[in-house]
């Protein structure tokens, strides 16, 4: 027996059309004039480059979406990525066992860093900003220590293929991003712990009063975020064919920017993987467009800064 007013079909959330499609609209608004001025933009070759460029930032952004949804923050992504890249590279020299080894080592390294972040945040009751700032510094130091401050090179071709190879015309790093995003989407939308992530970020006290293990959910979020930073580190090391201890400086802020542009609230409880992907895509297209227009990278940073603030400003104006 159904009450007449409600239907069983999932009804879209009550967000307005602009809020739902604003980002795609912005994307089109940038892409169309760009394609007219620079026909090179719309070539398959260039679009593959764009996709490849956003894959690292995209993977990091998906990870940090989890943390931001709980109302936390993770500043350690860039350093953890570098540490994981170095870790993976040291196990990726020719004739050093199965190919899965460096991949697993890289992801595990990231997972461990994330787990430590989560543990200290929940057990030590230290602000996430501080905990992950500490991890950012420490992981960077660890990466430099492990590599002796030099890039770890001489990697086996099977490993570097993970960064440069393609499957069905789509680069492997892009596959990685798509798989990660799909899994994260399913987890957040269809899995019980995923729902709990939203509840914890939305109202921690209410989540607790509903019998949710709030601390466990937070630890999960930081661990997932670390694991994906590890994966991004592996992908980056494979692409640049070295484990770079100085890689990824500032990447955490690009990732957070993509998530926030994608509509995730910094105070938690609101956001989606779809939004995060669109945010990462928008940033990638703008970068690529400015590259094609031969705009100096100095200007590019200025433009990026304006867009980050502008996107969130528009979003918050709209919410009122």
């Amino acid at each position, binding site marked *: 027996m159904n009450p007449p007013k409600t239907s*069983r079909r999932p009804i879209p959330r009550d967000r307005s059309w602009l809020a739902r499609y604003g980002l795609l609209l912005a994307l089109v608004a940038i892409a169309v004039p760009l394609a007219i001025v620079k026909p090179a933009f719309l070539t398959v070759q260039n679009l593959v480059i764009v996709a490849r460029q956003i894959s690292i930032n995209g993977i990091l952004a998906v990870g940090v979406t989890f943390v931001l949804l709980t109302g936390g923050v993770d500043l350690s992504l860039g350093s953890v990525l570098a540490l994981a890249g170095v870790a993976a590279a040291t196990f990726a020299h020719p004739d050093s066992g199965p190919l899965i080894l460096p991949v697993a080592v890289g992801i595990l390294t990231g997972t461990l860093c994330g787990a430590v972040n989560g543990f200290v945040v929940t057990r030590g009751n230290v602000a996430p900003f501080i905990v992950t700032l500490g991890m950012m510094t420490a992981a960077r130091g660890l990466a430099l220590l492990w590599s002796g401050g030099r890039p770890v090179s001489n990697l086996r071709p099977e490993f570097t293929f993970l960064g440069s190879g393609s499957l069905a015309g789509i680069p492997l790093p892009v596959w990685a991003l798509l798989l990660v995003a799909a899994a994260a989407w399913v987890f957040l939308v269809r899995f019980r*712990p995923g729902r709990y992530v939203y*509840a914890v970020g939305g109202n921690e006290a209410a989540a607790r009063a509903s019998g*949710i293990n709030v601390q466990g959910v937070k630890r999960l979020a930081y661990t997932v975020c670390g694991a994906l930073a590890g994966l991004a580190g592996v992908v980056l090391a494979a692409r640049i064919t070295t484990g770079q201890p100085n890689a990824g400086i500032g990447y955490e802020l690009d990732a957070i920017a993509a998530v926030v542009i994608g509509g995730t609230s910094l105070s938690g409880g609101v956001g989606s993987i779809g939004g995060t992907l669109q945010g990462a895509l928008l940033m990638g297209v703008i970068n690529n467009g400015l590259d094609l227009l031969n705009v100096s990278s100095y200007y590019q940073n200025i433009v990026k800064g304006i867009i980050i603030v502008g996107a969130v400003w528009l979003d918050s104006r709209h919410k009122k």
Partner: protein
Amino acid sequence: MRGLAKAFPGVQALQDVGLEVFPGEVHALMGENGAGKSTLMSIIAGLQPPDAGELQLDGRPVTIPNPHAALRLGIGMIHQELLPFRALSVEENLFMGQQPTRGFPGWIDRRALRRRARQLLDRLGATFPPTARMGSLSVAQMQTVEIAKALAHRVRLLIMDEPTSAISEREVEALFRIIGELRAEGVAIIYISHRMDEVFRIADRITVLRDGRHIETRPAAAFDEPGLVRLMVGRELDAAAPRAPTVAGEPMIEVDGLSLPGRFADLAFAVNRGEVLGLAGLMGAGRTEVLNALYGLVPATRGRIRIEGREVRIRQPADALRHGIALVTEDRKVSGLVPQLSVEQNLTLASLRRCCRGPWILRAGESRLAEDAVATFGIRASNRNQRVNQLSGGNQQKVVVAKALLTRPKVLLLDEPTRGIDVGAKAELYTLIDRLAREGMAIVLVSSELPELMRLSDRLLVLCEGRITAELDPRRTTQEAILHHAMPAAAAA
């Protein structure tokens, strides 16, 4: 300087209330929770404007737009909940906003600051230095600082809202000595307290408020305690008769020796199947804390809890839910709802396992669960996927109650379930509570509205300062009797 302050405001919480306070007088303001004491005081202290009425100071009409203006007029207030700058020193707190400066604008004259702070503290007999960090002081010491702050502004009218609710017996004596000295200096004091003994000890005159109306103002000597309580409670009992007693079942939940230091001690009670147990008591008596302990939000440190005769350990809400205990929390905004989630997602939040296979949420199952709840509890939403904070207060409250009931509890804990909802929604909740009890649920109810508590409960326990002071039959008792047992002074007698 006659008629130091007068208020004739007519807000909803207050109707046509008049109050006159004279210099050198301690004027006690009495009334139940929600009688309008706090509203009246916040108008005088400039925290909110009156909708109608007039304030006079020394016979001249004044407007008090904000607390700062109140202070300039010589009106200060010591709030029940102190809000000091904990990280700063006592002297910095004392002169916040009016630090003595010297030479360069904004350059604080530290020596003058310390000298004046020491003078004020000495006058109040404080034993701590002006350089002490505010956060390191006890509640009583912070109160002393607040009083000193008021003195720094040369207040002539000082409002004290339950100043003794969080301080020890000895500290109360010190406070009374200070009050006595202020009175001798001609300061007028409005004193709000629930404690009869205190009021009769220090008040010159007493004003009783009830339901936002002025009831009586007389010299303290013209009151006796029972008469005062009668005036405070006043209203006739609701026409609605108490619910028909349910057939007493076997004990569903038994509690023995339950203690949480500083909150409640050595509680023992049982609730039977099909019974509604009401917990009565004043604010801070420990009612909410007891419910929170049973639910594992803030577990008790000692004591045993048995469900259907089996002892259970409850250390977190998940344990409570597993053993069939559910809680409707006191404040739905604080701990009831996740505002960003939909009606459906809020409804199923505590019982998501019911519509999951492993970790996988079964969409159809979740929708069915939510739809049933919407229909059963008459939740009026345009659709289930509407954000929950777009509903009216009454409907939000129904969502919170439904969320708890979807866990299929044997024991339901209700903490102020009708606070802030309209009459219609209230009546629906009353009917629901009746029905749940008839179906065999054991219910523990906390409500500050005595008529409601008496109408819904089969049995009443009165709590005072964390202890059970009486067990009463709501059909054979009066509000006066309940209040008598809930008052700290009376309980000690």
